[in-house]
């Protein structure tokens, strides 16, 4: 499974990490390519500060409270679960890093590789599931 993670908002990052942790648990090779706003999630503290999009961002706290109350893991916890499966690879888009002035040191250590579009396409060509989130 190959996913382009384009969005950095809470509502989009949840499906990404739910699919990644489940896919890894199903022994699928999962490749997550973080680009544009998605890259924010890979910055240190980025996952914790992800908000709902637009005007809904005001309701982020309420949504997080609801997520917690039903026992759904937080994004950092889901990230940890993807690592546990040892099947999920995390890529940061090199161009986005340059565009948004994000040096490697600002990224979380879970980032496996810094790559460009060709690397993602080579992986996506061989993947049965390709998503853009």
């Amino acid at each position, binding site marked *: 499974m190959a996913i382009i993670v384009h969005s950095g908002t809470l509502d989009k990052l949840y499906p990404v990490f739910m699919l990644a942790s*489940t896919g890894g*648990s199903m022994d*699928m090779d999962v490749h997550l390519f973080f680009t544009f706003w998605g890259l924010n999630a890979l910055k240190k503290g980025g996952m914790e500060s992800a908000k709902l999009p637009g005007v809904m961002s005001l309701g982020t706290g309420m949504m997080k409270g609801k997520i917690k109350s039903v*026992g759904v893991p937080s994004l950092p916890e889901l990230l940890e679960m993807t690592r546990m*499966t040892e099947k999920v690879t995390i890529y940061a888009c090199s161009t986005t890093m340059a565009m948004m002035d994000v040096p490697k040191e600002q990224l979380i250590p879970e980032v496996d590789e810094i790559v460009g579009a060709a690397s993602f396409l080579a992986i996506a060509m061989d993947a049965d599931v390709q998503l853009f989130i």
Partner: protein
Amino acid sequence: MIVSDIKIDLELDCKGMFCPMPIVQLKKATKNMKPGQVLRLVATDPGSKRDVPAWADKTGNEILDSREEVKEFMFIIKVN
């Protein structure tokens, strides 16, 4: 084989958990089990009714028995 005679090596209680947790817990638990060992999973997430068989199908593990009781789903899974 009579299902009630099966020796359960590991009990996995996923009651109260929602997707993706039961599947992640299943992976975590079976990772440390030996081929031929048997796990019993109980979950309350309605999604697990189809999710657990899908997981077993893709990972090559075998569901020996499954039962649905009031708001509970039970699976007996042989690890391969």
